[in-house]
Protein backbone atom coordinates (compact mmCIF):
# COMPACT_ATOMS: atom_id res chain seq x y z
CA UNK A 1 0.00 0.00 0.00
CA UNK A 2 2.69 2.45 0.87
CA UNK A 3 3.27 3.77 -2.62
CA UNK A 4 4.30 7.24 -3.63
CA UNK A 5 2.60 10.02 -1.67
CA UNK A 6 -0.08 11.74 -3.76
CA UNK A 7 -1.80 14.10 -1.35
CA UNK A 8 -0.26 15.38 1.82
CA UNK A 9 -2.12 17.82 4.06
CA UNK A 10 -0.16 19.16 6.98
CA UNK A 11 -2.17 20.98 9.65
CA UNK A 12 -4.42 22.84 7.24
CA UNK A 13 -6.98 25.35 8.50
CA UNK A 14 -9.93 26.81 6.64
CA UNK A 15 -12.21 29.61 7.75
CA UNK A 16 -15.57 30.74 6.42
CA UNK A 17 -15.72 34.14 8.11
CA UNK A 18 -15.45 33.30 11.80
CA UNK A 19 -16.43 29.69 11.33
CA UNK A 20 -13.53 27.28 11.40
CA UNK A 21 -14.38 24.64 8.81
CA UNK A 22 -11.05 22.84 8.99
CA UNK A 23 -8.96 22.77 12.13
CA UNK A 24 -5.37 21.59 11.81
CA UNK A 25 -6.24 18.69 9.53
CA UNK A 26 -3.35 16.39 8.59
CA UNK A 27 -3.83 13.49 6.25
CA UNK A 28 -1.75 11.60 3.69
CA UNK A 29 -3.01 9.75 0.66
CA UNK A 30 -0.63 7.34 -1.08
CA UNK A 31 -0.74 5.78 -4.52
CA UNK A 32 -3.41 3.08 -4.64
CA UNK A 33 -4.87 4.02 -1.30
CA UNK A 34 -8.65 4.17 -0.89
CA UNK A 35 -9.59 6.64 1.77
CA UNK A 36 -13.20 7.00 2.91
CA UNK A 37 -14.04 10.15 4.84
CA UNK A 38 -17.15 10.15 6.98
CA UNK A 39 -18.67 12.18 9.77
CA UNK A 40 -21.76 14.19 10.61
CA UNK A 41 -22.84 16.97 8.26
CA UNK A 42 -20.96 20.20 8.75
CA UNK A 43 -17.89 18.35 9.95
CA UNK A 44 -15.72 19.64 7.10
CA UNK A 45 -15.53 16.50 4.94
CA UNK A 46 -16.55 18.23 1.72
CA UNK A 47 -14.41 21.26 2.48
CA UNK A 48 -11.39 19.01 2.95
CA UNK A 49 -11.87 17.14 -0.30
CA UNK A 50 -12.53 20.38 -2.18
CA UNK A 51 -9.22 21.72 -0.89
CA UNK A 52 -7.48 18.76 -2.53
CA UNK A 53 -8.14 20.13 -6.02
CA UNK A 54 -8.11 23.80 -5.13
CA UNK A 55 -11.85 24.45 -5.36
CA UNK A 56 -11.41 25.81 -1.85
CA UNK A 57 -8.17 27.31 -0.65
CA UNK A 58 -6.89 26.62 2.84
CA UNK A 59 -5.90 29.49 5.09
CA UNK A 60 -3.01 27.93 7.00
CA UNK A 61 -0.84 24.84 6.89
CA UNK A 62 0.73 23.10 3.92
CA UNK A 63 -1.03 21.10 1.24
CA UNK A 64 0.89 19.32 -1.48
CA UNK A 65 -0.59 17.26 -4.28
CA UNK A 66 1.86 15.14 -6.27
CA UNK A 67 4.65 17.05 -4.63
CA UNK A 68 3.38 20.44 -5.79
CA UNK A 69 2.34 22.88 -3.10
CA UNK A 70 -1.17 24.29 -3.41
CA UNK A 71 -2.09 27.74 -2.15
CA UNK A 72 -4.55 30.47 -3.07
CA UNK A 73 -3.62 31.66 -6.56
CA UNK A 74 -0.88 29.07 -7.10
CA UNK A 75 0.07 29.07 -10.78
CA UNK A 76 0.29 25.28 -11.02
CA UNK A 77 -3.29 24.71 -10.08
CA UNK A 78 -4.58 24.03 -13.59
CA UNK A 79 -1.90 21.48 -14.40
CA UNK A 80 -2.61 19.85 -11.08
CA UNK A 81 -6.36 19.67 -11.52
CA UNK A 82 -5.88 17.68 -14.72
CA UNK A 83 -4.43 14.94 -12.55
CA UNK A 84 -7.08 15.12 -9.85
CA UNK A 85 -10.52 13.92 -10.89
CA UNK A 86 -13.56 15.21 -9.04
CA UNK A 87 -17.07 13.80 -8.87
CA UNK A 88 -19.70 16.10 -7.39
CA UNK A 89 -22.84 15.43 -5.43
CA UNK A 90 -24.89 17.29 -8.05
CA UNK A 91 -23.08 15.64 -11.04
CA UNK A 92 -22.46 19.05 -12.67
CA UNK A 93 -22.54 17.64 -16.17
CA UNK A 94 -22.53 20.20 -18.97
CA UNK A 95 -26.20 20.30 -20.02
CA UNK A 96 -25.58 21.84 -23.45
CA UNK A 97 -23.22 19.05 -24.54
CA UNK A 98 -23.96 15.42 -25.35
CA UNK A 99 -22.59 12.69 -23.13
CA UNK A 100 -19.72 12.07 -25.54
CA UNK A 101 -18.93 15.79 -25.75
CA UNK A 102 -19.00 16.02 -21.95
CA UNK A 103 -16.32 13.37 -21.91
CA UNK A 104 -14.14 14.72 -24.71
CA UNK A 105 -14.18 18.45 -24.05
CA UNK A 106 -11.56 18.25 -21.30
CA UNK A 107 -9.12 16.04 -23.21
CA UNK A 108 -9.55 18.08 -26.42
CA UNK A 109 -9.50 21.62 -25.01
CA UNK A 110 -7.29 21.16 -21.97
CA UNK A 111 -5.02 18.21 -22.82
CA UNK A 112 -5.02 19.20 -26.53
CA UNK A 113 -5.60 15.64 -27.72
CA UNK A 114 -6.96 15.01 -31.18
CA UNK A 115 -10.68 14.42 -31.43
CA UNK A 116 -10.24 10.82 -32.58
CA UNK A 117 -8.05 9.91 -29.63
CA UNK A 118 -10.38 11.68 -27.19
CA UNK A 119 -13.43 9.90 -28.60
CA UNK A 120 -11.69 6.51 -28.32
CA UNK A 121 -10.84 7.17 -24.70
CA UNK A 122 -14.35 8.44 -24.00
CA UNK A 123 -15.92 5.29 -25.44
CA UNK A 124 -13.57 3.14 -23.40
CA UNK A 125 -14.68 4.80 -20.17
CA UNK A 126 -18.36 4.82 -21.14
CA UNK A 127 -18.01 1.06 -21.46
CA UNK A 128 -16.31 1.01 -18.09
CA UNK A 129 -19.34 2.70 -16.47
CA UNK A 130 -21.73 0.47 -18.46
CA UNK A 131 -23.57 3.10 -20.54
CA UNK A 132 -21.96 2.97 -24.01
CA UNK A 133 -25.40 3.28 -25.63
CA UNK A 134 -26.05 6.73 -24.11
CA UNK A 135 -23.15 8.49 -25.87
CA UNK A 136 -25.26 10.75 -28.07
CA UNK A 137 -27.89 11.76 -25.54
CA UNK A 138 -27.98 14.95 -23.53
CA UNK A 139 -27.54 14.74 -19.75
CA UNK A 140 -31.14 15.77 -19.09
CA UNK A 141 -32.30 12.63 -20.94
CA UNK A 142 -30.53 10.34 -18.47
CA UNK A 143 -31.51 9.12 -15.01
CA UNK A 144 -29.63 10.43 -11.99
CA UNK A 145 -27.60 7.25 -11.66
CA UNK A 146 -26.62 7.36 -15.33
CA UNK A 147 -25.68 11.03 -15.03
CA UNK A 148 -23.42 10.34 -12.10
CA UNK A 149 -21.76 7.50 -14.01
CA UNK A 150 -21.18 9.88 -16.93
CA UNK A 151 -19.63 12.31 -14.44
CA UNK A 152 -17.30 9.57 -13.22
CA UNK A 153 -16.36 8.74 -16.81
CA UNK A 154 -15.76 12.42 -17.53
CA UNK A 155 -13.22 12.59 -14.74
CA UNK A 156 -11.58 9.33 -15.79
CA UNK A 157 -11.13 10.63 -19.34
CA UNK A 158 -8.56 13.07 -17.99
CA UNK A 159 -6.57 10.01 -16.81
CA UNK A 160 -6.16 11.39 -13.29
CA UNK A 161 -3.76 10.08 -10.66
CA UNK A 162 -6.41 10.31 -7.96
CA UNK A 163 -10.20 10.50 -7.94
CA UNK A 164 -12.12 12.56 -5.41
CA UNK A 165 -15.78 11.78 -4.73
CA UNK A 166 -17.85 14.36 -2.86
CA UNK A 167 -20.94 12.50 -1.60
CA UNK A 168 -21.51 10.95 -5.04
CA UNK A 169 -24.73 9.17 -4.10
CA UNK A 170 -26.35 11.70 -1.78
CA UNK A 171 -28.64 13.26 -4.37
CA UNK A 172 -29.66 9.98 -6.01
CA UNK A 173 -32.91 8.08 -5.67
CA UNK A 174 -32.33 4.98 -3.53
CA UNK A 175 -32.72 2.53 -6.42
CA UNK A 176 -29.89 4.22 -8.34
CA UNK A 177 -27.32 4.30 -5.58
CA UNK A 178 -26.31 0.69 -6.23
CA UNK A 179 -25.34 1.19 -9.88
CA UNK A 180 -23.06 4.12 -9.00
CA UNK A 181 -21.44 2.32 -6.08
CA UNK A 182 -20.87 -0.74 -8.28
CA UNK A 183 -18.93 1.40 -10.75
CA UNK A 184 -16.88 2.84 -7.89
CA UNK A 185 -16.13 -0.62 -6.50
CA UNK A 186 -14.94 -1.72 -9.95
CA UNK A 187 -12.83 1.41 -10.20
CA UNK A 188 -11.24 0.58 -6.86
CA UNK A 189 -10.50 -2.85 -8.28
CA UNK A 190 -8.37 -1.29 -11.01
CA UNK A 191 -6.05 0.16 -8.39
CA UNK A 192 -7.21 3.77 -8.70
CA UNK A 193 -6.32 6.03 -5.80
CA UNK A 194 -9.58 7.27 -4.34
CA UNK A 195 -10.77 9.69 -1.68
CA UNK A 196 -14.47 9.28 -1.05
CA UNK A 197 -16.75 11.36 1.14
CA UNK A 198 -19.83 9.24 1.74
CA UNK A 199 -22.39 7.97 4.21
CA UNK A 200 -22.56 4.60 2.46
CA UNK A 201 -20.96 2.46 5.12
CA UNK A 202 -21.51 -0.78 3.23
CA UNK A 203 -19.44 0.62 0.38
CA UNK A 204 -16.82 1.90 2.80
CA UNK A 205 -16.46 -1.53 4.41
CA UNK A 206 -16.07 -3.16 1.02
CA UNK A 207 -13.63 -0.71 -0.57
CA UNK A 208 -11.82 1.42 1.99
CA UNK A 209 -8.38 0.63 3.26
CA UNK A 210 -8.42 3.66 5.53
CA UNK A 211 -11.36 5.24 7.32
CA UNK A 212 -11.19 8.88 8.36
CA UNK A 213 -13.76 10.19 10.80
CA UNK A 214 -14.22 13.95 11.05
CA UNK A 215 -16.12 16.16 13.42
CA UNK A 216 -16.18 19.94 13.79
CA UNK A 217 -13.41 20.41 11.28
CA UNK A 218 -11.05 17.98 12.98
CA UNK A 219 -9.98 14.48 12.13
CA UNK A 220 -11.06 12.52 15.17
CA UNK A 221 -10.01 9.07 14.07
CA UNK A 222 -8.01 7.46 11.29
CA UNK A 223 -8.04 3.69 11.29
CA UNK A 224 -8.36 0.65 9.03
CA UNK A 225 -11.99 -0.38 8.40
CA UNK A 226 -11.69 -3.62 10.44
CA UNK A 227 -10.92 -1.53 13.49
CA UNK A 228 -13.19 1.38 12.63
CA UNK A 229 -16.36 -0.65 12.19
CA UNK A 230 -15.87 -3.12 15.00
CA UNK A 231 -14.01 -1.25 17.65
CA UNK A 232 -13.59 2.46 16.97
CA UNK A 233 -11.17 4.11 19.34
CA UNK A 234 -13.06 7.37 19.70
CA UNK A 235 -16.36 7.53 21.53
CA UNK A 236 -17.66 10.04 19.02
CA UNK A 237 -17.10 7.70 16.07
CA UNK A 238 -18.79 4.91 17.98
CA UNK A 239 -21.86 7.10 18.56
CA UNK A 240 -21.91 8.14 14.90
CA UNK A 241 -21.74 4.54 13.72
CA UNK A 242 -24.50 3.54 16.12
CA UNK A 243 -26.73 6.24 14.73
CA UNK A 244 -25.97 5.55 11.11
CA UNK A 245 -26.05 1.74 11.30
CA UNK A 246 -29.10 1.54 13.52
CA UNK A 247 -31.50 1.02 10.65
Amino acid at each position, binding site marked *: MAGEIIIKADKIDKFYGDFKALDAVSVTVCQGQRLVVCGPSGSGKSTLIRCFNGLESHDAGRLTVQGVELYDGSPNIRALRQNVGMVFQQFNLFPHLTVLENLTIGPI*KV*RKLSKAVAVDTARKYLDRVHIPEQADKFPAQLSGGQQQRVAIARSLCMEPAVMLFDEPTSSLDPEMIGEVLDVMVELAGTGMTMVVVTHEMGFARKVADTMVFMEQGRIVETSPPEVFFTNPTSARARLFLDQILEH
Partner: protein
Amino acid sequence: MTARPMTVNRFLNQRPVAVVLYVAVVGLICWSSYTGAQQMGYNWQWYQVPKYLFTFTDDGFQWGEIMVGLVATIWLSVTSFVLATVLGLLVALLRLSGLVMGTVVSVGFLEIIRNIPLLVLLYLFYYVLGPVFGLDRWTASVLTLGVFHAALVSEIFRAGINAVAKGQWEAADSIGMSRAQAYRWIVLPQSVRFMLPPLTGEMVALIKSSAIVSVIAVAELTTVGRNIISDTFMSFEIWFTVAAVYLVITVILSIGVSRLEKRYAVNQ
Protein backbone atom coordinates in the same frame (compact mmCIF):
# COMPACT_ATOMS: atom_id res chain seq x y z
CA MET B 1 -69.19 22.58 -14.86
CA THR B 2 -70.79 24.82 -12.35
CA ALA B 3 -71.69 28.22 -13.64
CA ARG B 4 -69.32 30.80 -12.26
CA PRO B 5 -70.68 34.28 -11.69
CA MET B 6 -70.25 36.46 -14.76
CA THR B 7 -67.68 39.03 -13.65
CA VAL B 8 -66.83 42.06 -15.76
CA ASN B 9 -63.47 40.52 -16.64
CA ARG B 10 -64.97 37.28 -17.81
CA PHE B 11 -67.55 39.14 -19.88
CA LEU B 12 -64.90 41.25 -21.62
CA ASN B 13 -62.74 38.23 -22.35
CA GLN B 14 -65.34 36.33 -24.32
CA ARG B 15 -64.17 36.14 -27.90
CA PRO B 16 -67.09 37.86 -29.72
CA VAL B 17 -67.13 40.64 -27.13
CA ALA B 18 -63.36 41.09 -27.45
CA VAL B 19 -63.56 41.31 -31.25
CA VAL B 20 -66.34 43.87 -31.15
CA LEU B 21 -64.41 45.92 -28.59
CA TYR B 22 -61.22 45.77 -30.69
CA VAL B 23 -63.00 46.83 -33.88
CA ALA B 24 -64.77 49.63 -32.03
CA VAL B 25 -61.53 51.03 -30.56
CA VAL B 26 -59.55 50.86 -33.81
CA GLY B 27 -62.51 52.30 -35.72
CA LEU B 28 -62.78 55.16 -33.27
CA ILE B 29 -59.08 56.02 -33.66
CA CYS B 30 -59.22 55.90 -37.48
CA TRP B 31 -62.47 57.83 -37.65
CA SER B 32 -61.32 60.57 -35.29
CA SER B 33 -58.00 61.07 -37.04
CA TYR B 34 -59.78 61.10 -40.41
CA THR B 35 -62.42 63.60 -39.36
CA GLY B 36 -59.80 65.62 -37.52
CA ALA B 37 -57.75 65.84 -40.69
CA GLN B 38 -60.88 66.71 -42.69
CA GLN B 39 -61.68 69.53 -40.31
CA MET B 40 -58.26 71.07 -40.63
CA GLY B 41 -58.69 70.70 -44.36
CA TYR B 42 -55.88 68.19 -44.73
CA ASN B 43 -55.30 67.13 -48.30
CA TRP B 44 -54.63 63.37 -48.25
CA GLN B 45 -52.27 62.29 -50.99
CA TRP B 46 -51.67 58.56 -50.30
CA TYR B 47 -51.23 57.99 -54.05
CA GLN B 48 -47.97 59.97 -53.79
CA VAL B 49 -46.47 57.62 -51.19
CA PRO B 50 -45.58 54.48 -53.20
CA LYS B 51 -43.00 56.29 -55.32
CA TYR B 52 -41.00 56.94 -52.15
CA LEU B 53 -40.95 53.19 -51.53
CA PHE B 54 -40.12 52.01 -55.05
CA THR B 55 -40.59 53.09 -58.68
CA PHE B 56 -40.72 51.52 -62.10
CA THR B 57 -39.13 53.80 -64.66
CA ASP B 58 -37.64 53.26 -68.08
CA ASP B 59 -34.49 52.12 -66.26
CA GLY B 60 -36.53 49.41 -64.55
CA PHE B 61 -37.17 48.80 -60.85
CA GLN B 62 -35.71 51.26 -58.35
CA TRP B 63 -35.93 51.51 -54.58
CA GLY B 64 -37.46 54.78 -53.37
CA GLU B 65 -35.97 57.22 -50.88
CA ILE B 66 -37.66 55.67 -47.85
CA MET B 67 -36.22 52.24 -48.63
CA VAL B 68 -32.76 53.74 -49.11
CA GLY B 69 -33.23 55.39 -45.71
CA LEU B 70 -34.32 52.06 -44.25
CA VAL B 71 -31.16 50.37 -45.51
CA ALA B 72 -29.12 53.11 -43.84
CA THR B 73 -31.07 52.60 -40.60
CA ILE B 74 -30.48 48.85 -40.68
CA TRP B 75 -26.80 49.28 -41.48
CA LEU B 76 -26.44 51.86 -38.70
CA SER B 77 -28.29 49.63 -36.22
CA VAL B 78 -26.34 46.49 -37.07
CA THR B 79 -22.96 48.24 -36.84
CA SER B 80 -23.93 49.87 -33.55
CA PHE B 81 -25.28 46.60 -32.18
CA VAL B 82 -22.05 44.77 -32.98
CA LEU B 83 -20.13 47.50 -31.19
CA ALA B 84 -22.60 47.39 -28.27
CA THR B 85 -22.26 43.61 -27.99
CA VAL B 86 -18.46 43.57 -28.03
CA LEU B 87 -18.18 46.50 -25.64
CA GLY B 88 -20.99 45.14 -23.46
CA LEU B 89 -19.31 41.74 -23.16
CA LEU B 90 -16.01 43.40 -22.22
CA VAL B 91 -17.69 45.52 -19.56
CA ALA B 92 -19.58 42.51 -18.19
CA LEU B 93 -16.42 40.37 -18.02
CA LEU B 94 -14.56 43.24 -16.37
CA ARG B 95 -17.35 43.53 -13.82
CA LEU B 96 -17.26 39.79 -13.13
CA SER B 97 -13.46 39.58 -13.10
CA GLY B 98 -13.30 40.06 -9.35
CA LEU B 99 -10.65 42.75 -9.77
CA VAL B 100 -11.36 45.93 -7.81
CA MET B 101 -10.14 48.02 -10.73
CA GLY B 102 -12.42 46.12 -13.12
CA THR B 103 -15.48 46.68 -10.97
CA VAL B 104 -14.71 50.39 -10.55
CA VAL B 105 -14.20 50.94 -14.28
CA SER B 106 -17.27 48.98 -15.35
CA VAL B 107 -19.63 50.37 -12.74
CA GLY B 108 -18.37 53.89 -13.51
CA PHE B 109 -19.00 53.37 -17.23
CA LEU B 110 -22.43 51.97 -16.55
CA GLU B 111 -23.57 54.75 -14.26
CA ILE B 112 -22.25 57.55 -16.46
CA ILE B 113 -23.81 56.21 -19.65
CA ARG B 114 -27.10 55.25 -18.06
CA ASN B 115 -27.57 58.67 -16.52
CA ILE B 116 -26.92 60.83 -19.57
CA PRO B 117 -29.80 61.34 -22.02
CA LEU B 118 -29.13 59.69 -25.36
CA LEU B 119 -29.57 63.01 -27.17
CA VAL B 120 -26.96 64.71 -24.98
CA LEU B 121 -24.60 61.78 -25.50
CA LEU B 122 -25.03 62.19 -29.25
CA TYR B 123 -24.22 65.92 -28.99
CA LEU B 124 -21.17 65.09 -26.89
CA PHE B 125 -19.87 62.67 -29.47
CA TYR B 126 -20.65 64.84 -32.47
CA TYR B 127 -20.00 68.37 -31.28
CA VAL B 128 -17.31 67.73 -28.63
CA LEU B 129 -15.46 64.53 -29.45
CA GLY B 130 -16.21 64.93 -33.15
CA PRO B 131 -13.97 67.95 -33.79
CA VAL B 132 -11.34 66.65 -31.33
CA PHE B 133 -10.94 63.24 -32.93
CA GLY B 134 -12.21 64.11 -36.40
CA LEU B 135 -15.32 61.94 -36.28
CA ASP B 136 -17.80 62.28 -39.12
CA ARG B 137 -21.58 62.12 -38.57
CA TRP B 138 -21.79 58.43 -39.26
CA THR B 139 -18.95 57.43 -36.91
CA ALA B 140 -20.28 59.69 -34.16
CA SER B 141 -23.71 58.09 -34.54
CA VAL B 142 -22.38 54.53 -34.44
CA LEU B 143 -20.25 55.33 -31.39
CA THR B 144 -23.13 57.02 -29.57
CA LEU B 145 -25.60 54.22 -30.16
CA GLY B 146 -22.96 51.52 -29.55
CA VAL B 147 -21.73 52.99 -26.28
CA PHE B 148 -25.22 53.82 -25.01
CA HIS B 149 -26.54 50.34 -25.63
CA ALA B 150 -23.31 48.66 -24.49
CA ALA B 151 -24.19 49.74 -20.96
CA LEU B 152 -27.55 48.00 -21.16
CA VAL B 153 -26.17 44.99 -23.03
CA SER B 154 -23.46 44.49 -20.39
CA GLU B 155 -26.15 44.12 -17.73
CA ILE B 156 -27.87 41.50 -19.89
CA PHE B 157 -24.60 39.59 -20.26
CA ARG B 158 -23.89 39.83 -16.55
CA ALA B 159 -27.31 38.50 -15.64
CA GLY B 160 -27.02 35.69 -18.21
CA ILE B 161 -23.58 34.65 -16.98
CA ASN B 162 -24.70 34.72 -13.35
CA ALA B 163 -27.70 32.59 -14.23
CA VAL B 164 -25.41 29.65 -15.06
CA ALA B 165 -25.13 27.34 -12.04
CA LYS B 166 -21.99 27.67 -9.91
CA GLY B 167 -21.42 23.93 -10.24
CA GLN B 168 -20.68 24.43 -13.94
CA TRP B 169 -17.68 26.60 -13.06
CA GLU B 170 -16.51 24.01 -10.56
CA ALA B 171 -16.86 21.20 -13.07
CA ALA B 172 -14.89 23.23 -15.63
CA ASP B 173 -12.25 24.00 -13.00
CA SER B 174 -12.02 20.38 -11.98
CA ILE B 175 -11.05 19.26 -15.47
CA GLY B 176 -8.34 21.91 -15.54
CA MET B 177 -9.98 24.52 -17.74
CA SER B 178 -8.73 28.09 -17.60
CA ARG B 179 -11.18 30.87 -16.91
CA ALA B 180 -11.24 31.79 -20.59
CA GLN B 181 -11.87 28.18 -21.62
CA ALA B 182 -14.65 27.84 -19.06
CA TYR B 183 -16.31 30.97 -20.44
CA ARG B 184 -15.88 29.93 -24.06
CA TRP B 185 -16.92 26.27 -23.87
CA ILE B 186 -19.09 25.94 -20.78
CA VAL B 187 -20.60 29.16 -19.45
CA LEU B 188 -21.31 31.41 -22.44
CA PRO B 189 -23.01 28.71 -24.56
CA GLN B 190 -25.36 28.08 -21.66
CA SER B 191 -26.06 31.72 -20.95
CA VAL B 192 -27.12 32.43 -24.56
CA ARG B 193 -30.48 30.94 -23.69
CA PHE B 194 -30.94 33.46 -20.89
CA MET B 195 -29.62 36.36 -22.95
CA LEU B 196 -31.46 35.94 -26.23
CA PRO B 197 -34.85 37.39 -25.23
CA PRO B 198 -33.52 40.54 -23.54
CA LEU B 199 -30.90 41.01 -26.31
CA THR B 200 -33.65 41.04 -28.92
CA GLY B 201 -35.45 43.63 -26.88
CA GLU B 202 -32.25 45.66 -26.87
CA MET B 203 -31.84 45.35 -30.65
CA VAL B 204 -35.41 46.57 -31.13
CA ALA B 205 -34.74 49.44 -28.73
CA LEU B 206 -31.57 50.27 -30.67
CA ILE B 207 -33.36 50.38 -34.02
CA LYS B 208 -35.88 52.74 -32.52
CA SER B 209 -33.35 54.96 -30.80
CA SER B 210 -31.30 55.14 -34.02
CA ALA B 211 -33.95 57.64 -35.23
CA ILE B 212 -32.36 60.18 -32.92
CA VAL B 213 -29.33 60.61 -35.20
CA SER B 214 -31.64 62.51 -37.59
CA VAL B 215 -30.84 65.55 -35.41
CA ILE B 216 -27.32 65.54 -36.83
CA ALA B 217 -28.69 64.85 -40.31
CA VAL B 218 -27.43 61.32 -40.86
CA ALA B 219 -29.37 60.14 -43.90
CA GLU B 220 -31.39 57.35 -42.27
CA LEU B 221 -35.09 56.55 -42.29
CA THR B 222 -36.30 59.36 -40.05
CA THR B 223 -34.15 62.00 -41.76
CA VAL B 224 -35.40 60.84 -45.14
CA GLY B 225 -38.97 61.11 -43.92
CA ARG B 226 -38.38 64.65 -42.70
CA ASN B 227 -36.76 65.64 -45.99
CA ILE B 228 -39.66 64.29 -48.03
CA ILE B 229 -42.12 66.19 -45.86
CA SER B 230 -40.25 69.45 -46.22
CA ASP B 231 -40.55 69.00 -50.00
CA THR B 232 -44.14 67.78 -50.18
CA PHE B 233 -45.89 68.78 -46.90
CA MET B 234 -47.42 65.28 -46.69
CA SER B 235 -46.62 64.97 -43.00
CA PHE B 236 -49.49 62.59 -42.14
CA GLU B 237 -48.85 60.07 -44.90
CA ILE B 238 -45.08 60.03 -44.55
CA TRP B 239 -44.95 59.76 -40.76
CA PHE B 240 -47.54 56.96 -40.86
CA THR B 241 -45.44 55.19 -43.48
CA VAL B 242 -42.17 55.68 -41.61
CA ALA B 243 -43.75 54.38 -38.39
CA ALA B 244 -45.11 51.36 -40.26
CA VAL B 245 -41.66 50.60 -41.73
CA TYR B 246 -40.06 50.68 -38.25
CA LEU B 247 -42.86 48.47 -36.97
CA VAL B 248 -42.43 45.94 -39.75
CA ILE B 249 -38.69 45.44 -39.22
CA THR B 250 -38.91 45.22 -35.43
CA VAL B 251 -41.78 42.72 -35.62
CA ILE B 252 -39.88 40.58 -38.14
CA LEU B 253 -36.89 40.65 -35.80
CA SER B 254 -38.96 39.57 -32.80
CA ILE B 255 -40.55 36.69 -34.70
CA GLY B 256 -37.17 35.51 -36.00
CA VAL B 257 -35.67 35.44 -32.54
CA SER B 258 -38.60 33.66 -30.92
CA ARG B 259 -38.03 30.89 -33.50
CA LEU B 260 -34.36 30.81 -32.55
CA GLU B 261 -35.29 30.62 -28.88
CA LYS B 262 -37.45 27.59 -29.49
CA ARG B 263 -34.54 25.85 -31.17
CA TYR B 264 -32.28 26.57 -28.22
CA ALA B 265 -34.95 25.41 -25.80
CA VAL B 266 -35.13 22.05 -27.58
CA ASN B 267 -31.36 21.63 -27.35
CA GLN B 268 -31.20 22.05 -23.59
